[in-house]
């Protein structure tokens, strides 16, 4: 077996791509922050032409918006392949065969999916060297905490992963879909029950100036023919995101309508100028992250197996429960448990919802009062969103990372089977 010497971190730069459910982060290894944020969706018009990046926001007739991701994993590889190619040609301005490629996978990624990743990287893109990095490992490296408990709350998936000495035990990894998008769903549902129509920014030519609660009487809107519902929904989600970002809040204790907290309002103005002061629903839309069943969504059936590492697990758990499940499956000494609880990392974009990290801390402190848990929560917003990418960037630059690279020659010789050995 001929083995080409894998690249050394110090002399070769690689491209690092993290395909998140909402945003894809792209940059060069060794950098602290990614160079590009690109929405992980694509538009497809009636002729089957794909649009990526900023082009996705252009209102086109009969054009649908699709996401190639599902449950944190790549689902539509054809789309992902052309998305990666587009990243190279339109964002990086280089050929894929010029530099090694590192991508990030969630820890529950299937073997078939890993093999597919290899196939796309080597056959479609012709990259010279390729590697897959597990998100929690990247996070652990970024934080310089080889033993840590990682709570990552993204847009589509929230997960709890114990990392011990730089590796993870698959059965202890738990994830659920009660994450950022779930909050969006609650906000949307709430607004619908109040008969508030969301007019996304792409339609608004001019905002109206209105008193709170006053409906828009003469909307000044653009008109686009044949807009598909998926495009409208995608644009609407941007408004929901803004609401979540600026108005939603998580109560520091389990929410009750009686808490004084619930009575303090916060105004939100929609793109068309409609505005209102929101009270308790700021909290009730975020509370489901921790108590998914407390605020049932009419007309929405929560999907089965929306939680758990094993299929068929139908219990619906909030973040605190995920944590409990994960730790209870761990087969470790009390010393390791202490180390884990002393290195709790909270990251992911959704963790930025006002009050959420405080609430998680509160719950864990109550669960383990005698262990005096300690937390590592990156303070800067962008840092907390980029933890995984930065970790992958660091990993791609480490010499010890050698064993997990696959070169084009190796792939040509052994094929996608290699995924099983290298990317365990």
């Amino acid at each position, binding site marked *: 077996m001929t083995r080409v010497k894998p690249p050394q971190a110090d*002399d070769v*730069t690689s491209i690092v791509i993290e395909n998140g459910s909402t945003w894809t*982060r792209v940059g*060069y290894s*060794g*950098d602290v*922050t*990614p*160079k*590009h*944020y690109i929405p992980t969706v694509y538009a497809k018009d009636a002729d089957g032409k794909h649009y990526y990046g*900023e082009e996705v*926001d252009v209102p086109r007739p009969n054009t649908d918006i699709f996401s190639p991701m599902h449950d944190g994993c790549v689902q539509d590889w054809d789309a992902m392949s052309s998305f990666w190619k587009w990243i190279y040609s339109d964002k*990086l*301005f*280089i050929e894929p065969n*010029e530099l090694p490629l590192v991508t990030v996978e969630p820890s529950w990624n299937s073997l078939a999916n890993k093999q597919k990743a290899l196939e796309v990287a080597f056959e479609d893109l012709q990259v010279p060297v390729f590697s897959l990095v597990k998100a929690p490992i990247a996070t652990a490296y970024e934080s310089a905490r080889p033993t840590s408990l990682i709570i990552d709350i993204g847009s589509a998936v929230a997960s709890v992963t114990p990392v011990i000495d730089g590796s993870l035990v698959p059965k202890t990894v738990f994830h659920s879909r009660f994450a950022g998008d779930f909050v969006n769903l609650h906000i949307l549902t*709430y607004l619908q*029950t109040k008969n508030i129509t969301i007019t996304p*920014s*792409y339609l*608004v*030519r*001019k*905002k109206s*100036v*209105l*008193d*709170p*609660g*006053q409906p828009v009487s003469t909307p000044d809107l*653009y008109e686009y023919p044949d807009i598909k519902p998926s495009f409208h929904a995608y644009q609407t989600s*941007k408004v929901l995101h*803004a609401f979540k*970002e*600026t*108005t939603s809040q998580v109560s520091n204790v389990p929410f009750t*309508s*009686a808490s004084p907290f*619930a*009575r*303090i*309002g*916060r*105004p*939100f*103005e929609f*793109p068309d*100028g409609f*505005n*209102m*002061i929101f*009270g*308790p*629903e700021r909290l*009730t839309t975020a509370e489901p992250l921790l108590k998914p069943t407390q605020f049932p969504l009419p007309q929405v059936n929560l999907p089965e197996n929306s939680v758990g590492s094993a299929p068929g697990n139908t219990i619906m758990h909030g973040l605190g429960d995920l944590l409990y499940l994960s730790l209870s499956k761990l087969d470790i000494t009390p010393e390791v448990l202490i180390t884990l609880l002393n290195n709790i990392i909270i990251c992911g974009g959704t963790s930025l919802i006002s009050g959420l990290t405080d609430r998680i801390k509160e719950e864990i402190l109550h669960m383990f009062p005698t262990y005096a848990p300690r937390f590592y929560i990156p303070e*800067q*917003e*962008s840092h907390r*969103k980029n933890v995984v990418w930065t970790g992958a960037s660091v990993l791609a630059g480490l010499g010890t990372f050698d064993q997990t690279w696959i070169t084009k020659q190796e792939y040509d010789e052994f094929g996608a089977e290699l995924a099983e050995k290298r990317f365990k």
Partner: protein
Amino acid sequence: MNKFTDYFCRAAQLQPSYAPELTIVGTALGGLVPNVSSVLLQINGGPFAGLIPAGINGMVAQYSELQDVINQYILPDKKAKFDDSKSQCLLSDFAEYVDTNFWTWFNNGNEFFYDARTQKVINENTMGVDPTQIPITPLYFYQSDEDEVAPIVATNTLYNQWCSKGVSINFQKSLVSEHISESIEGSAAAYSWLLDRLNGKPVAKGCSTATSLFSNALQNLQVFGSIIAATIELPTVVYKDPENEGKFKSTGVEKDAVRPIVASKIVDLAALNYFIKLIYKSATKPVASYIPPALLLVTPSQWTRGQIESITQYAFETIQVTGFTLIPTCQVVAYAHNTPFSLIIDIGKERTEISPISDFQVVENAVITIPYGGDSITSEITKLLPDLSWEQAEDLKKSPIYEVLSEDDTKNSWFGLNPDASEDNNLEDDGVVDVAAIVASGRTREILAERERAKQNEESGGAKKVEPPNMDREFNSFVDRNGKTIEVGKQRFHGTETLVDKLTFSVGEAIKRIDQIIRRQDIWDNLIITGRGSRIKGLKEAIFVNLQARFLILRPTTYSELPSTVNTGYNTPNANNGGGTPGFNNFNSHLNSAVNNPALHQGHGQAPTSIKLAKMPEYFPEWKGHGWEDVAFLGAEIAAKQYFTGSIDNVYMSRNDYNSFGPAYIWEVI
């Protein structure tokens, strides 16, 4: 012509005998005119012909005997005209006498020139003729090789003559500027040279000649520091050397031309490297005795990593710079405006780049580039006016009659006031006033007053007809590049709409990508619209108005929500006194809301509650009136001053860094 220079030169020449007690440490001379006859023969009948009467009349003032010679030879009907130059400035001379062949103004052509009396004066005024008269101070000559007034050959002769007699001369030639621009631009280099003499820096003994590709203006950077506008602009083009495969030259024929940068991207790296070397070498030649200066490159975001590393390598290994760094274009724009948080909207030819700046750093992952720019305006124009060719549409776009009208202006423009006017109906009878439209416009008084004034002007027999402003006219005309005059109607106010709309939406998207929510407002308060595409009259205003219309948070309660350390109870609406926020009291959440005091809320986190354009600082007077489109250069000058003087750590790569770590080290510093 440098009448001044000439006298000064002769002063230097005469100085030892004339004023020996005067200490002259150095003399700088530009656009030398060592031999008057050579000049007269060269410029007659050309664009600089005006120098002839100016020069001769200048001589007459000193040598009255010349007047007799002129009176003897000049044709009677030309005398008055020739004498005009006695009373007007040099620029008027150029205008009046352009392309005049003066030999037709005199009897027997240029015979007067060879008259013994004239020749005597000329000889007295030719430098270096009298072997006893040589300057003893060091000299600095600067002249352009292409000098169309004073041929450089004559200066070369003088240079050789004086050098052979032991005068120290530093002769700075430049290859591509001409007489006038060199005398302006080159003076900075000369000034720098003089400054050194005054500071007592010894000049190298003997003579030296240096030739720079461009004007000596590049020196300006060192002389005037970071405050002046770039005085030269060069096309980014080099030429293939037909004899040496793979080599380049600074001059050549069009078929060998290589343009290394296309649409901000590098298409020919080797050519670009060569071009950078040319600029660097020519800029640093005059100061070759000192340590070579560092190099700062302003780069668009489209340059790839490999290309940048390769340029770094070339800079250290081939150009031999001592320090090197790169800065993104939008970052230097932020430097120039001194705005740590801002948003740069750079409207280019084919694309517009929207780059948020946080803490003087480009937030790279929030940058949005849209494929709309100056060209999309041109293409819209060709759609509106199908008769125009692409080039004509370009010319219209660049002409002063093309502008973007604000909503108010549109109402008050000719078209706003004549809503029924159809395209073919161009009868604008002066007597007919559309009263309804005037009244509706809300500016009745002003409009009527304007009309009154216009009328009075006309009645008072005003030879000057008052031209109505562009927006008040139904038709206006422009001249295309071939000199053809073309009249256009209201289409001249349209074509930018798509660009403005796309741009507005993307600005909102870009700012949403700023993770630090608290900084978004700061960014909204410092918008910078730049780039050549933004030069269109009214375009910046249109973008600004559109942004406000689509994004500004305008609800009446906005300001009472702002957190205040002092609660006066005055600004805050209070439900108890009936001043509650309308609509809110009826509001019930599905939890049967306990909210009963709408005044008690947290304030909001939404931006923008205000949108402003960043103001250019006042302290760059040299840049006033220059136009802010090139402001990136100013920012680069500021950056260079800060970076290479050690005010900020780790922002440039030294030769030492390069030797230890190689080109990839550039990523540690930028």
